[in-house]
């Protein structure tokens, strides 16, 4: 009986809906300003098309594809860290230096002869402490996060300088760290990974469909799984090609290790945010802190926890940074990385106003920025509108392009918020 009343009253929740209904809803959401990751996906497609046309032989090569994924990894992980602060409606401008400090702590400990687990553990503890410090200043002292992390920007940079000595570079001798960014799975391992990942994804989607009482049509699940499978299979086929230079007498093939590593982080953090009380409360505090407080949520604790998670994850991003160049210097996590990480999350569709965003957005935004970084130099010198000669490979153009991408993404965010009103 109970069930029947409920069905009658909330038909949308329990009556099966068609693909057309779902598409209709999606368009309505889109019109309402909830664009999600769509702009980032469009940007990826556009950038690939533009750069592919401009320089097909280099940009569209398998080697460049693998390179792109490896370039993007550190920014993506740090962007995921920054997402924790953005979900609160706060910001962390110092996440890049948190990453740098964590990497430097690890590198110097290794240099002093510590074993890898101890060095990693200490650096993780340091990253957590830095995050907690930020969280304490924001949640307990009540300083705007913009100011706290601006100060931290200088403080953490100072710590990094002291650790690596001015102008110094600390090399990393650990094979495991060096392999994080750079090594690849064997072609067989790549296939095993892809098959397992796809199976888990399909199982998860089907489970969600079952729990939705038909509100999610099975055809949509089928399309999602088929689409993902197609992308994954094509990517794996490409990555399993030999991508060593023609002259080289070694073979480089298989999926770069960063892909499963980043995916693992992405999926596990997303799961925690979607399925735990703390995750739910993080979104609540970001959406309406006063409402969360009235609902009995300890807002300051959530903020402290979010900044702590941000610190730890930024630290993990630091390992990726260190692995990229097999060393740590005073510029690890500085300049580009720092700002790109903040930009990546926003470009991916995470709101600057809090409460809206997912880890996948950081990944997509990170890819957009990596594409700009990777593709522009390959465009070379071109005349723009037959007027001015522009050298697209210059770092000036790169910086302007990345900055414009962030502004466009932030405009989309701000405007969609207005229209949702």
């Amino acid at each position, binding site marked *: 009986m109970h069930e029947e009343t*409920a069905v009658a009253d909330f038909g949308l929740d329990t009556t099966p809906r068609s693909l057309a209904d779902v598409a209709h809803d999606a368009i309505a959401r889109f019109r309402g300003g909830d664009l999600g990751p769509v702009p980032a996906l469009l940007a990826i497609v556009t950038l690939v098309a533009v750069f592919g046309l401009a320089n097909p032989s280099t940009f569209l090569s398998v080697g460049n594809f693998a390179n792109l994924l490896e370039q993007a990894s550190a920014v993506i992980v740090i962007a995921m860290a920054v997402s924790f602060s953005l979900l609160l409606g706060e910001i962390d401008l110092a996440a890049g230096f948190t990453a740098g400090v964590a990497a430097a702590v690890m590198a110097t400990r290794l240099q002093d002869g510590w074993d890898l687990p101890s060095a990693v553990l200490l650096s993780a503890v340091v990253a957590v402490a830095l995050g907690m410090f930020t969280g304490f200043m924001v949640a307990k002292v009540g300083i705007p996060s913009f100011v706290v992390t601006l100060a931290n920007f200088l403080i953490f940079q100072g710590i990094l300088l002291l650790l690596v000595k001015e102008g110094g570079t600390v090399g990393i001798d650990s094979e495991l760290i060096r392999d994080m960014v750079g090594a690849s799975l064997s072609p067989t391992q790549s296939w095993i990974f892809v098959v397992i990942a796809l199976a888990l994804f399909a199982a998860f989607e089907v489970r969600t469909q079952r*729990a939705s009482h038909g*509100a999610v049509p099975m055809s949509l699940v089928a399309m999602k799984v088929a689409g993902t499978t197609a992308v994954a299979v094509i990517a794996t086929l490409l990555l399993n090609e030999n991508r060593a230079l023609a002259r080289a007498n070694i073979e480089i093939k298989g999926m770069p290790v960063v892909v499963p590593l980043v995916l693992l982080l992405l999926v596990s953090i997303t799961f925690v945010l979607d*399925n735990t009380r703390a995750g739910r409360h993080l979104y*609540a505090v970001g959406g*309406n802190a006063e409402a*969360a407080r009235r609902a*009995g949520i300890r807002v300051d604790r959530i903020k402290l926890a979010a900044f702590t998670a941000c610190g730890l994850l930024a630290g993990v991003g630091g390992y990726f940074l260190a692995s990229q160049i097999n060393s740590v210097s005073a510029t690890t996590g500085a300049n580009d990385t720092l700002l790109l990480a903040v930009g990546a999350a926003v470009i991916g569709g995470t709101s600057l106003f809090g*409460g809206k965003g997912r880890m996948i957005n950081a990944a997509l935004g990170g890819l957009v920025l990596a594409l700009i970084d990777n593709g522009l130099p390959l465009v070379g010198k071109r005349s723009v509108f037959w007027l001015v000669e522009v050298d697209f490979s210059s770092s000036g153009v790169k910086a302007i392009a990345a900055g414009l991408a962030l502004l466009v993404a932030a405009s989309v965010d701000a405007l969609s918020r207005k229209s949702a009103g």
Partner: protein
Amino acid sequence: MSTSLATEPLLELRGVNKSFGSVHVLHDVDFRVHAGQVTSLIGDNGAGKSTLVKSIAGIHPIDSGEIRFEGEDVAIRGPRDAAELGIEFVYQDLSLCENLDVVQNMFLGRERLRRGLLDKSSMEQAARDTLATLGVRTVKSVRQPIRSLSGGQRQTVAIARAVLWNSRIVVLDEPTAALGVAQTEQVLALVRRLADQGLGVVLVSHNMNDVMSVSDRVSAMYLGRMAADIEVTASTTKEQLVGLITSGQRAGNPTTDTHGDDT
């Protein structure tokens, strides 16, 4: 009529005083809430309505006086005490997270867990059942984000949330202040239904039409004192209520039939 007076009030405040520094806001206030009734609390701005409500909520604990719940002396020293007694509040400025959906808001801060993880399907079912028992038909899906709902729908969700917790008393602070005519009607119908289901409902309102249409009793405050506690009958007029608000006296027969009529 007199039967309602014969029954014991669910919540009773006697001789309550509250000061903020040198400002004496509540003077020997008596206030009663009966189960199954809508008790409206009216009064001009600054009359002490919201201080009284906040003292019940535990936000501003009382300085002196008695609070009785089901005939027993209780102390409400903080919001937790109020929640434990089953007193829930629906605030004027909605306490909802626009980015979360209906279910997520209804269970906010009190999420159900299964094996340490959110038990989404059980929460969804409970939210649907609660809305259904309240006869809510305006919210199409409990998976809609609050952002996509109208003001009336949001207020409905806020009220349903208060009811979800086996609450005994629901206090609504100006629930129709920001709503249009049709939505106001829906919300008032819901307020009435809460009382009909046996809850004690306190409606804080400035709107005499609202008060007249749903209330069983009206408590009127005037300058920090309880000016009158009257039963709403067919002969009660809007003018009488306005008189209570503006002068603390009932037009026509001043000072009679105030509180204290239950020996």
